[in-house]
């Protein structure tokens, strides 16, 4: 009878050590496997994380490079330049793709971990186009007119030689490097008009401008039905320049920027250094053209 009483209370105690041992065993095996795979993957792979603007280009680079060097594995992920810089300092990525230069706070965070500044490489040029609806009679705008339009001081198309209609602004999300760059180079750091609608990408800007006869927007080089890129002149009286490859690379088109890759200087050896050199070689720069960006001028490849 005692036994039947013990049955309820003792059974868990009999079971507990056994399950504990099993759990511990399973956990240690699991950890071991994870650690081993991590080491195995780490051995000959490069990870690149960061800007969504650069993700397609970086993937294309990785694809072509891996075809030429079958022993190297390159993983590319997006998430944004800020995410990339955070990953760079946490050692969860080797390369950080960035569509904007690193900020001082991020440099400080990197120095804390690396004891050195991260190394910056310019890897491509990006020319920004200003888009209007196809039916818009305005043929070109100056940089100053663009500033007035996007800060909200010019609110009607007739003030810049168009029809009597309100200007509808299409901008990018403020997380985009494009947004920041346009703000620095065209708006001189002034705020965009609060009325500017923000779009998640160049394609969305083009789509909106294509549907809105009074719309104006900006973005990377792209094609969309109903919208066209507007030639831009540096000042009134100067010729208006179209955003073609020739004009962007020789610097006569006024709205362009660099795209970057950042790396921990301690890692910039061996395969990673080789890969970064390859990106800035002719072979790497030829790929840039295929995905809508422009190659670096020869002078700034180092």
């Amino acid at each position, binding site marked *: 009878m005692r036994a039947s009483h013990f049955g309820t209370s003792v059974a868990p105690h009999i079971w507990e050590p056994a399950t504990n041992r099993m759990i511990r065993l399973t956990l240690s095996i699991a950890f071991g496997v994870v650690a081993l795979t991590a080491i195995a993957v780490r051995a000959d792979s490069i990870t690149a994380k960061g800007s969504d603007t650069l993700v397609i280009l970086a993937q294309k680079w990785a694809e072509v490079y891996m075809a030429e060097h079958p022993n190297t594995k390159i993983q590319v992920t997006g998430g944004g330049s800020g995410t990339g810089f955070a990953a760079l300092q946490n050692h969860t990525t080797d390369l950080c793709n960035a569509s904007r230069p690193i900020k001082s706070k991020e440099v400080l965070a990197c120095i804390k971990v690396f004891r050195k500044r991260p190394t910056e490489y310019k890897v491509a040029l990006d020319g920004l186009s200003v888009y209007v609806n196809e039916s818009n009679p305005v043929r070109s705008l100056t940089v100053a007119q663009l500033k007035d339009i996007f800060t909200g001081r010019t609110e009607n198309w007739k003030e810049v030689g168009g029809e009597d209609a309100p200007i509808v602004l299409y901008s990018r*999300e403020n997380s985009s490097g494009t947004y920041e760059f346009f703000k620095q180079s065209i708006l001189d750091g002034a705020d965009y008009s609060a009325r500017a*609608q923000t779009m998640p990408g160049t394609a969305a800007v083009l789509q909106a401008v294509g549907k809105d006869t009074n719309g104006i927007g900006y973005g990377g080089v792209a094609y969309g039905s109903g919208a066209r890129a507007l030639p831009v002149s540096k000042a009134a009286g100067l010729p208006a320049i179209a955003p073609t490859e020739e004009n962007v690379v020789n610097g006569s088109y006024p709205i362009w920027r660099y795209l970057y890759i950042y790396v921990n200087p301690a890692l910039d050896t061996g395969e990673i250094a080789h890969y970064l050199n390859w990106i800035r070689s002719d072979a790497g720069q030829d790929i840039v053209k295929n995905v809508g960006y422009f190659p670096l001028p020869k002078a700034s490849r180092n």
Partner: protein
Amino acid sequence: MSAGDSDNWAGIHRGRRTAPGEWLAEKAIFLISLSAIILVFLIFAFILRESLPIFLGTMNSSASRKVIQPSEMHTISREALRAYLEMPAGEFAEMDDETLKLMMEVKLEAAAEAPEDKDAKVNTASWSLMLKPHQWTGYDKPEYIWQPVSEIHKYNLIPLLVGTLKTTLVAMLFAVPLSLLAAIYVSQLASARHREWLKPAIEMLSGIPSVVLGFFALIVMATVLQKVFGYQSRLNAFVAGIALGLAIIPVVFSISEDALTSVPPSYPQAALALGASRWQAAWQVVLPAAMPGVFAATVLGFGRAIGETMIVLMASGNASIMGWDILDSTRTITATIAAELAEAVFGGHHYRILFALGTMLFAVSFLTNLAGDLITHRLKKQLEGKP
């Protein structure tokens, strides 16, 4: 033997040994349910921790601050240096002099780039600037401005709060009457045959992923509504609100329909026996009896609407305009967090303010859900006739 008699009653063994399988399953279920609760707490603790410096007002986002020359590194105290570099004590102790000097140089470079502006020295992440209008350089009058990516980071939350309330309000005004009327019809007036396919059909709306609804609103609804009403900006609080309404209709409908159905049939039967029409019975007898449940449905719908992200991100135009015109483009809290977090400097003021917005949203969502639950509970008790 005597103990065995008391343990064995009507063939049930009180002290029967639990089968090991049962015991494991029971513990596993317990752990899973416990982990759900722990997870909610962990999530809240995490977002609160990330946003705490904002709530405490210890975050400084002024663009230009006092600079200490790297050459003065050894003339100031270690503690002053640590405060200047904004490092925790443990981390600071591990740094060698060379690294510290490098960090001071970077700070100096950043200070050289800081704008010459009367606003450069103010802390824009303080509560007064986040809630009250301020006349920034380049503006003609004091204004509510959300421009976080800027030389002077402008973090006024009011345009986002107004934007969120605007879209939520439109969604509620559109969805609540519609789903309430549908619920009354389905539960009280429709024939059994109609009810059989009407209820699942309306509830199927909840099966549409919100990103698909948002996409539909962006491409189709925006164009159609603009053609019908002829307003200026294609994407605005109105379009986003209607799309959001579609997302909350199944929530409001489903819960209020349950509430209406759970009113005892003797209520409308008594009304009908006294000569009321079916509509009168539904509207004047059943609806008041189910009012707490209907209210709970509304509150839950509100909680869903205020926290919905994808639809407003795609269909609202996302311009942070301050004003109550529903035909203006608008920017909501959820869309702001979704769009801006990826590029914010980790641990920086922008990042922390986004987390503070998340904390507020979490609180509102949690409280509305809690209120909805409590009211539903009360309703159940009331209808079961318990005090």
